[in-house]
């Protein structure tokens, strides 16, 4: 089997297993867990497209999340769009935001920490604007009226949302698999590994990175739109605050940068960890996040390749330990 066929078979198997599990599950707790894990995975996958394969570390992916979320809400509330159409609009507007940020920052050659900081600042500007401008509902935020029907993208059961999230995650997986085996993906990884060398063999780093940020932003925007449909609410802190940016990047890095399954694995593991610590230590505010933060540090210390590369890290540690 070719490597692409292997990836595709894996994605199909994943979709089948998660789909079957959803149909069999009855417990509301587990359905909610599955839904939120898929949602977290989508954000990390989106971040991984640019951060993992493009090597551009964004600290402001909340910008694209927020644009998607606000677009999803406003297109329905103010423009009277259907929710499914709004979903496409949200992805398109987030992609446009990605193109804007990317065109500016890559045009001026911002790399590494500078790129991380400029994205952080863009998200912060958007947050302040969302608080201050009238049409975004200000600090109070926007509420979506409850109109439960599949045509309105509001499902009576968690299973409907899980199906939607699963579909989005599978599309993200397919796009990632395409990146791994296409010419564009090869150029993107070449730019990540050595921009000068890539330019020398005729790759245009600006165009390639721009393509990656547009893709990444579009998926992040659908994540924001999904959030609005599930919770029927968005405000500036949720939409543009740094916690969403952090959630997306931590899942991808913990799972394994630039891998197909890493972001999914990382987001699911961190979500499980967060749920467990919340249930175990919920009575003492702060303790759950102390455990969460500590595990994050420990993972980085002992599994530097992320969960997807943990086999290799442990083998190295074992060999190194025996040698030393």
């Amino acid at each position, binding site marked *: 089997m070719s490597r692409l066929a292997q990836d595709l078979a894996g994605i199909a198997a994943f979709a089948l297993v998660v789909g079957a599990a959803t149909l069999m599950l009855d417990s509301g707790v587990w359905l909610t867990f599955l839904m939120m894990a898929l949602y977290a995975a989508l954000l990390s996958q989106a971040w991984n497209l640019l951060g993992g394969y493009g090597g551009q570390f964004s600290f402001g992916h909340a910008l694209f999340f927020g644009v998607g979320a606000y677009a999803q809400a406003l297109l329905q509330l103010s423009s009277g769009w259907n929710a499914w159409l709004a979903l496409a609009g949200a992805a398109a507007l987030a992609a446009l935001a990605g193109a804007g940020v990317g065109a500016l920052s890559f045009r001026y050659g911002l790399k590494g*920490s500078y790129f*991380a900081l400029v994205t*952080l*600042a863009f998200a912060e500007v958007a947050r302040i604007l969302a608080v201050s401008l009238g049409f975004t509902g200000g600090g109070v935020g926007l509420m979506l009226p409850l109109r439960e029907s599949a045509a309105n993208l509001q499902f009576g059961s968690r299973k409907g949302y899980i199906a939607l999230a699963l579909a989005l995650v599978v599309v993200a997986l397919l796009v990632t698999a395409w990146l791994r085996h296409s010419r564009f993906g090869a150029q993107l990884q070449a730019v990540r590994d050595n921009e000068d060398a890539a330019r020398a063999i005729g790759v245009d780093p600006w165009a390639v990175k721009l393509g990656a940020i547009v893709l990444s932003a579009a998926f992040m925007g659908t994540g924001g739109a999904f959030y609005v449909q599930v919770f029927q609410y968005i405000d500036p802190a949720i939409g543009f605050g740094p916690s969403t940016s952090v959630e997306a990047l931590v899942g991808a*890095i913990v799972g394994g940068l630039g891998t197909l399954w890493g972001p999914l694995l990382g987001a699911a593991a961190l979500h499980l960890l967060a749920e467990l610590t919340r249930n175990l230590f919920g009575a003492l*505010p*702060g303790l759950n996040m102390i455990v969460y*933060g*500590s595990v994050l540090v420990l993972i980085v*210390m002992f599994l530097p390749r992320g969960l997807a590369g943990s086999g290799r890290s442990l083998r190295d540690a074992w060999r190194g330990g025996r040698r030393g």
Partner: protein
Amino acid sequence: MLDPAILFASVLNGLTTGAVYALVALGLTLIYGVLHIINFAHGASLMVALYAVWLLHARAGIDPYLALPLVVAAMFALGYALQRLIVNRASHGKDENILLVTLGLAIVLENVALLAFKSDTRTIDTPYTLATVAIGPAFIALPKLIAFGGALAAAALLWVIVARTDLGRAIRAVAKEKQGARLCGIDVDHVYAMSFGIGLACLGAAACFLLPAYYVNPQVGAGFVLVAFTIVVLGGMGSFAGALLGGLLIGVVESLGGLWLGESLGQIGIFMIFIVVLLFRPQGLFGARA
């Protein structure tokens, strides 16, 4: 048009706030300049220092200004230990790992504070908290004036350490060329830890100057992080004079922005400056060409 007296008071207020910003940014720029890492735990570390000052005052009755040597020494030790025991070991030479580790540390520190002190906002009450000094037509709070002088003194001290001592020479050598410094017999890991320690010691000083006219809660650091990054970039990453001037400038911009645009929209001026500088002059207003 605005009354010149109000404008003058606003600029003065901005300058005093900016001096403390500068002190926070000095620590950040030192850590960035030497270790080339973005320390996302910087805000949380400032919060730890603020709680230390608050505890010393509330439990032991020690005046914030007298607590200065104690807090600075403790923060230095904390920074040295954090870098040596955690950040350095976890980095594996990869930037994204350092970033995650400092992020994890920030989460842990913030929530330890939440667990220990609850989320209440705390202030301290000193005889001089409400004292003011008249400068021309404006009145300025005495603690802010002291903070201004203290921040300038701390910046000068930092400059002397980096420019005139053997440690400073080693720090500059490691910042320029890590491998070369190692070949010359400099203990790079020690210099890294010293830089991190000094960076956090700056926060200790900033906390002592801040608290008499400010407050502390577990999230207090977050407000300083982005402002400090802005100053560091504005002044040129790794430049001390730049951080100092950048801090004063940002303090004034924030103060005037708040005057003209209101509290929340006023903040936007800082970030617009930040983005424009990053795009058009990433080496900073005062930095040398990278």
